């Protein structure tokens, strides 16, 4: 024990594929299967095709926002403003179309860009003013939500257009379009994180911003880009939300940040930065979505759903901690 401070402990001897990341993913998959078995035994509707396609068509909002959140958490930051950004993009898009007569396609793009702008603001405050990301995005969380109310004057706007509806409700060969977009984004960012120097730099920055900077990595630029990505993806989720509801409301996507952070952390991404995978996040998102769906089918009150979600988070992270501690114990015994 005493040697731990002065001399390096022997590294863990493990099979190559059995990394911490794969273990986390494996335990998540097991929990997911158990969850499905449980729901299937409780309600006959759970495994029906109609229900599964409900799950599939409503997963994109949390799923897409979680990609951005994973990137931000890997750098050691956090983005609380995603729910507000999702609402803002919907409001901006609908106002530009309905009141300013801008073509819907252009309005949609501008709505998404508005989210990117908020992300840029977040990134600039975090990097240049050096304000803690939690505080920064807590502030923009409030500012942007307020802005959505101011712009819309608190009104809900109906918004229906065939092409626009397709984003959230359309299907391609029976598969929801939003799901296809989500999976494509996961694929893209999976490769970005794993195989580009940009992605690898994010892990390095999360591991040690100081060392990364002194290794010649443009830390500021990376952080700006990451917050912009998070803003853009949250805004895109907001568009999907509007398309699914056929209306834009300043109240939209309340609490999205909570669900998203839960999913990402559930997927094994560390709040301390430097660790996390998109596969983990994807599984985390699926588990949360399944949990919500199953509880609805079991006719559990929505109040209890919040309670359940909180418990799942603590269980998942607690389990991970125990596993880590157990692993360390074994290592120090071996050393």
């Amino acid at each position, binding site marked *: 024990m*005493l*040697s731990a*401070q*002065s*001399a*390096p*402990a*022997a*590294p863990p*001897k493990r099979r*190559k594929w059995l990394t911490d990341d794969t273990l986390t993913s494996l335990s998540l998959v097991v929990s997911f299967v158990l969850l499905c078995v449980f729901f299937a035994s409780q309600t006959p509707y759970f495994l029906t095709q109609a229900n599964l396609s409900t799950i599939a068509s409503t997963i994109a909002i949390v799923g897409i926002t979680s990609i951005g959140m994973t990137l931000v958490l890997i750098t050691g930051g956090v983005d609380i403003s995603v729910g507000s950004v999702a609402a803002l993009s919907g409001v901006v898009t609908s106002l530009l179309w309905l009141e300013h007569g801008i073509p819907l396609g252009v309005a949609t793009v501008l709505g998404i860009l508005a989210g990117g702008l908020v992300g840029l603001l977040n990134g600039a405050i975090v990097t240049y003013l050096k304000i803690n990301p939690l505080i920064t995005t807590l502030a923009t969380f409030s500012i942007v939500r307020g802005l959505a109310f101011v712009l819309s004057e608190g009104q809900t706007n109906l918004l229906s257009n065939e092409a626009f509806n397709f984003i959230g409700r359309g299907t391609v060969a029976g598969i929801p379009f939003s799901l296809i977009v989500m999976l494509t984004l996961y694929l893209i960012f999976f*490769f970005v994180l*794993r*195989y*580009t*120097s940009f992605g*690898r*730099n994010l*892990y*390095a920055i999360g*591991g*040690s911003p*100081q*060392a*990364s*900077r*002194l*290794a*010649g*990595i*443009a830390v500021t630029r990376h952080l700006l880009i990451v917050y912009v990505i998070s803003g853009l993806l949250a805004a895109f989720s907001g568009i999907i939300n509007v398309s699914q509801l056929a209306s834009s409301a300043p109240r939209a996507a309340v609490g999205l940040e909570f669900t998203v952070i839960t999913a990402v952390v559930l997927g094994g991404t560390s709040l301390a930065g*430097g*660790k996390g995978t998109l596969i983990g996040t994807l599984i985390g998102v699926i588990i949360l979505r399944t949990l919500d769906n199953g509880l609805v089918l079991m006719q559990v009150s929505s109040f209890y759903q919040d309670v359940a979600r909180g418990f799942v988070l603590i269980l998942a992270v607690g389990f991970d901690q125990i596993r880590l501690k157990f692993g360390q114990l074994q290592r120090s015994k071996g050393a």
Partner: protein
Amino acid sequence: MMANQMNGAPLLEMRHIHKSFFGVKVLDDVSLSLRKGEVLALLGENGAGKSTLIKILNGDYTMDSGEIYLGGQHVQFHEPRDAEAHGIRMIYQELHYAPDLSVTENLLLNELPHGRGFPGRYAIDWRRAREMALARLKLLDLAIEPDVHMRDLPVVERQIVEIVKALSAEAQIIVMDEPTAALTPPEVEMLFGIIRNLCAQGVAIIYISHRLDEIFDIADRVTILRDGQHVATQAVAEVTMASVVELMVGREIEARRKTIEVGGGAAQVVLEVQNLTRQGAYEDVSLKVHAGEIVGVFGLIGSGQLSLTRSIFGAERPDAGSILVDGSACTIRHPQDARNAGIGFVPVDRKVQSLIMGQSVRKNVTLSNWGRLARMGFFQQGVEKQHTQHWIDSLGIRMAGDMEVPIRFLSGGNQQKSVLARWLEANVRVLILNEPTWGVDVGARSDIYDQLEALAQSGLAILLVSSDIQEILSVCQRILTIYRGRITAEFLRDQVTKDQLLAGAAGETL
């Protein structure tokens, strides 16, 4: 044992201490004795075993074999609390205090007095606390205001408050680890006044410092360790600076000296710094490093050399002056500019500033060069592994396992070699190193020196900043001394003596 005949039983005796980490002997039969009221200087190079010995005394480490006697009694310390209960106090280089609490609160951290009676006993009696603090400060005739926040005190006074805190609980022995590293000369005098005062009251002090000149001012005896072995214990009156250095260093310097031929001269200037100034850190610094040359900057810690190198690398902004690489001026605003200009940087604190501790050796080695290992934006993992393996082999980086092992599991020397590999992989032409062998054991140290020499021979321009005189003399061909942010002298290695270097680092003009 040696002291027994002279002064009765010594206050503290550590006898035949042995300690190994993973089969590497760190302490080999080391003995030490300390008398009441004396200052014993504990000297040795980095890695000689000083801090291990002190940590054993403090109960931080357990020894493999050996005995500790305190006032003639055999004692065993299992944790720092045990040592504290026996009146042994540590004052570390990094101070441990709460900056936003007052001096009073810091002094009485664990024993703030409470009032009496029903509501009173649940509240702190601030008036009495203040009086208690004042009384303790008075013990050493100190005029420090007890209500001031620690943050607002000058460093030396913070240090003194720490000493008072250590005293407050009946200290018999105080160990001071580099207490003057951050102090100015008048402050050092002030600290010495306190130490003398303490000794007059019977407290014994173990004093660790790299500033050898101080030893002659403050210590009564010196104990010198080298490579984990006790080399000598002598009265200060019987030694000279030169004899102490020789005992600390052994004969290694002379042996190394012959191996290097003088380079530079006709070779091309790769790095040139002109009149670089940063207010409050360094002033009007000009220097040149040729291809194939190792230039040393020698100075005591805190002489501005750190800030200077950080500025060359773009991690700090200089106020004036210019930096030229290959004769053309570079605008270096950020570290990435420096990297792109072909400058690599090895910072002091490897664990915080160089390494991503949780990531693998491979990822750490390629950290500065990820861009170049990608093709069409995609990472070539095979190429990356090849390159990493190349550096592992050629620099002799040793690790338990393969290159996927997290770098925190490597020893200090191997970690430092990985940092070297990172910059070699990034293909730099200039390498700036800050105290590259701090916390690196002796064997790995000479390994690193060999690597630096080989790199210089292959055409790299190397600027080495160190406060370790032996290191400077071992590897550098040209040596600049720095004192309070100014370059005071320049020497060719073959024409300089240690005394000249020390004089330059002490600001004496020759």
